[in-house]
């Protein structure tokens, strides 16, 4: 049941610019790890490398000691969500999840189950192009949950969700971690991370500037917000 996500000395360059420098952290089972940083800090780039979409110039990003690209049925190990629904707009939500299920040998009954779970039970036959931002976000979550994975990797999961949706996802992720699962999520929203995460990885200008249990990272600052600006501001951390 133990599943560790480990990122070790990750370096990524785009042209001559280094967008990730020696990024190192772990996301442990039973805990919600929040990857926190301002826009453009390198959160999505890190997650994209962890999910095997982009290649690192140096370093490793491993799922239980294996690169994602070597996983046979990855959806059964790591459920993930990136920006947007990741579904072609002319498909129905149900078709999108059905092809995903087929690709990993996941029973097709899971499609209806996850649609119900994320509150899209009545919208399965609707084309994704007609979804609101919040519905796209819910579809992305349904896709992440499809293979009943032990780890969840979510890029800005609360974007576009209404307060009720934010509360719902908080309960969902808490439950996943309490059941022994691993949760890694990124956000630029401090309050959300403060309320969901057990562990914090603060990233700025492509470098990890602080990491550890949330109370340790914010120790010495009145609030997470103060800690965040002190750690990620122009005078601190990255260059």
């Amino acid at each position: 049941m133990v599943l560790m996500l480990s990122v070790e000395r990750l370096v990524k360059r785009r042209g001559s610019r280094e967008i990730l420098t020696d990024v190192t952290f772990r996301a442990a089972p039973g805990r919600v790890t929040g990857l926190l940083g301002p826009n453009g800090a390198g959160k999505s780039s890190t997650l994209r490398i962890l999910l095997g979409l982009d290649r690192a110039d140096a370093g490793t990003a491993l799922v239980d000691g294996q690169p994602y690209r070597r996983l046979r049925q990855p959806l059964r190990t790591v459920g993930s969500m990136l920006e947007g629904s990741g579904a072609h707009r002319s498909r129905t939500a149900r078709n999108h999840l059905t092809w995903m299920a087929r690709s990993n040998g996941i029973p097709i009954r899971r499609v209806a189950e996850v649609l119900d779970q994320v509150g899209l039970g009545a919208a399965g036959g609707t084309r994704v192009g007609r979804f609101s931002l919040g519905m796209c976000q819910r579809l992305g979550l349904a896709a992440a949950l499809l293979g009943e994975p032990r780890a969840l990797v979510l890029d800005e999961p609360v974007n576009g969700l209404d307060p009720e949706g934010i509360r719902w996802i908080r309960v969902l992720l808490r439950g996943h971690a309490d059941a022994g699962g691993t949760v890694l999520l990124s956000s630029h929203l401090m309050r959300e991370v403060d309320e969901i995460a057990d562990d914090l990885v603060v990233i700025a200008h492509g470098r990890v500037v602080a990491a550890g249990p949330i109370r340790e990272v914010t120790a010495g600052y009145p609030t997470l917000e103060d800690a965040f600006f002190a750690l990620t501001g122009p005078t601190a951390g990255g260059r």
Partner: protein
Amino acid sequence: MIRSCARATAAELAKLSGLPAALAAVFGTIGTAVAITGALAASPVGANEPVAVVLQAVPYLQAGTITLGVLAVGTEYADGQLHTTLRCVPDRLVVPAAKALAYLAWAAGTAVAALAVGLLTARIALATRDVPVVTDGLPWNVVGAAAYLALIGLLGFALAALLRAVVSALVVTLSLVLVVSPVLDAVTPHARYLPDRAGGLLYLPDQAQVLTPATGLLVLLGWVVVLASGALAAFRRRDA
């Protein structure tokens, strides 16, 4: 490896079935076959034999399978679907292989259905003109036409992989087979080495007898392999 390929192919088949544009391409091809063979067979100056009528319709039908090939690949590059695909199947060889297999299954089905419906339409239309129709077995050139239709769509498939977009790949491929090829054919005999001219020998004899159906097939496949391997190399190297 074989199991993950089979799963990936099942996923690609489901993907095509969920694209309204792909279904429109399939039914559009079949509808076009009916309309064109019907018109040709009903015309008193047209061919008097169902097979000949159907073969005349093939150059129009190829737009359908080319569209199917372009859609199979090109739609990955809209709305971030490719990111989903690669998170489901991270292997950069399995994805294109599964996609090509799923495309070929759909295109072969579409080609066979369009040609069969075209033959039937031609037969009925000729019967209404009281033209006697000789019934014998399925001639080799109808089988060749089905193979040609499925394979020429691979050209659209490969070009969509290179261009990573539906519209530009459709424009390039369709103008190649519908405009550039006929124009060059009027200008130079070397036009016979264009993919659609060479592949066309699968159902039409070469008047100049330079290429045979087999060598024509090889020329068409050569085009596809060159374009597809360029696209594949870039796909494996590039960040998604």
